[in-house]
């Protein structure tokens, strides 16, 4: 029987494994390897720094989300040999495959920017989001600088969302008057997509938030409390919140299927890995020039499941799921219970509507419904 190995038990890996189990029933053996026995709902971390979400409510047992036909193995992959078609775990255990799906996501690497780990907060891990919550609770006014501390980073809208929610949090706490907020961004406007920048910039200004564009963080001086950019500006801070740069999983760095930062060479339409047609990749770990987002993994998963199932069943690929068209959708929280939504694909740029309560409540409902809808493949 053919062996399918799925690496990673996050949004992408869990969904692909479940879709394959539904399509193939007992026609293949499906094993999912994950470093963690928990499945994490990372979008919820956005609210943790403000005390609006308990991080303990943002994870579930991975096993409980998997189809019974999927075998779960907990362990961290330390090596992939795509020629021998095998994967080795830190424990030394080696697994062989006929088809491999790489869905090991991305990891934050603050160590890539001098001073960042010591000087800055972020909310891109559960632990960091908790720590930032403690720092904000103690904060009584001063200068807060928020921005993108390195590229690439997942969920491109999150720094903007965080800034809007920070303004709301400080206002509610009664210390907004005593606080200067500065938002930094790497390019010449407040967000990479022009239509989103045009919507967000007046909102930032209306809320008295300073804007520092063309700001690519080069280093942080934790002693002098300065954030220093490649373009030559220095921003003093009392509290610094910078999204660290990301890399792919460590075992992928410099592997035959990935570049030096661990981003897997992935075909933009079939999601097949370059030179290895029996390997597929999805989610944050690909080198595709699109948003690293849960919704990206969600829309990619059916394409991979269909290609592998068709190959095993010896039938042509169903044209409905033959190619990925770059579809991504992301909510954008604007604070004060309003949000917008961005939906786009390779050919169509997004046209974000004016923030309204409707999208905010849709996002809140989705945050709760995620567990029932996404990893299981209901939608």
């Amino acid at each position: 029987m053919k062996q399918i190995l799925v690496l990673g038990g996050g949004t992408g890996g869990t969904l692909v494994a479940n879709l394959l189990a539904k399509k193939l029933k007992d026609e293949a053996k499906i094993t999912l390897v994950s470093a963690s026995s928990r499945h994490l709902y990372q979008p919820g971390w956005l609210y943790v720094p403000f005390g609006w979400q308990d991080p303990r409510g943002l994870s579930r047992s991975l096993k409980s989300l998997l189809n019974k036909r999927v075998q779960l193995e907990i362990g961290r992959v330390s090596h992939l040999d795509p020629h021998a078609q095998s994967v080795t775990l830190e424990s030394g255990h080696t697994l062989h495959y006929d088809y491999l799906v790489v869905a090991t996501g991305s990891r934050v690497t603050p160590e890539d920017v001098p001073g960042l780990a010591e000087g800055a907060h972020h909310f891109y891990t559960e632990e960091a989001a908790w720590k930032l919550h403690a720092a904000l609770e103690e904060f009584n006014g001063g200068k807060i600088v928020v921005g993108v501390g390195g590229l690439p980073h997942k969920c491109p809208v999150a720094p903007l969302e965080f800034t809007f929610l920070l303004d709301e949090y400080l206002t509610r706490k009664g210390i907004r008057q005593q606080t200067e907020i500065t938002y930094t961004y790497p390019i010449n406007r407040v967000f990479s997509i022009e239509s989103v920048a045009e919507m967000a910039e007046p909102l930032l200004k209306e809320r008295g938030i300073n804007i520092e564009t063309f700001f690519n963080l080069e280093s942080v001086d934790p002693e002098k409390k300065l954030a220093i950019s490649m373009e030559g500006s220095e921003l003093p801070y009392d509290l610094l919140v910078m999204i660290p740069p990301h890399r792919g999983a460590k075992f992928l760095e410099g592997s035959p299927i990935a570049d030096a930062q661990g981003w897997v060479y992935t075909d933009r339409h079939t999601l097949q890995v370059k030179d290895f047609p029996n390997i597929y990749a999805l989610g944050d770990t690909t080198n595709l020039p699109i948003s690293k987002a849960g919704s990206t993994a969600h829309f990619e998963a059916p394409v991979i499941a269909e290609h592998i199932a068709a190959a095993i069943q010896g039938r042509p690929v169903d044209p409905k799921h033959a190619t990925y068209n770059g579809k991504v959708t992301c909510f954008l929280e604007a604070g004060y219970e309003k949000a917008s939504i961005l939906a786009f694909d390779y050919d169509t740029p997004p046209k974000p509507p004016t923030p309204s309560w409707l999208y905010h409540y849709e996002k809140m409902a989705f945050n709760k419904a995620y567990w029932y809808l996404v990893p299981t493949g209901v939608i």
Partner: protein
Amino acid sequence: MVSPVQITKEIDARGSFCPGPLMELIRNIKTAQVGDVIAVLSGDPGSVKDIPAWVEKAKHEFLGIEDVEGEVKRFIVRKAH
């Protein structure tokens, strides 16, 4: 037409609205070696303005723009420092 230069790395950022071709360029410049020539393929009309503006601000060297097909253009940049 740009005089022929040896391109070290080409990034295919067609269809990238978010984070966008310029963000792809910045991330690749950061990990490149000084002197490397990076090319970015972009179909976003905004790139014509955005990419040269950032390259100038960040003091790298803008080597030129080539038409590829339809809206798609190739932007060529040398990492200067």
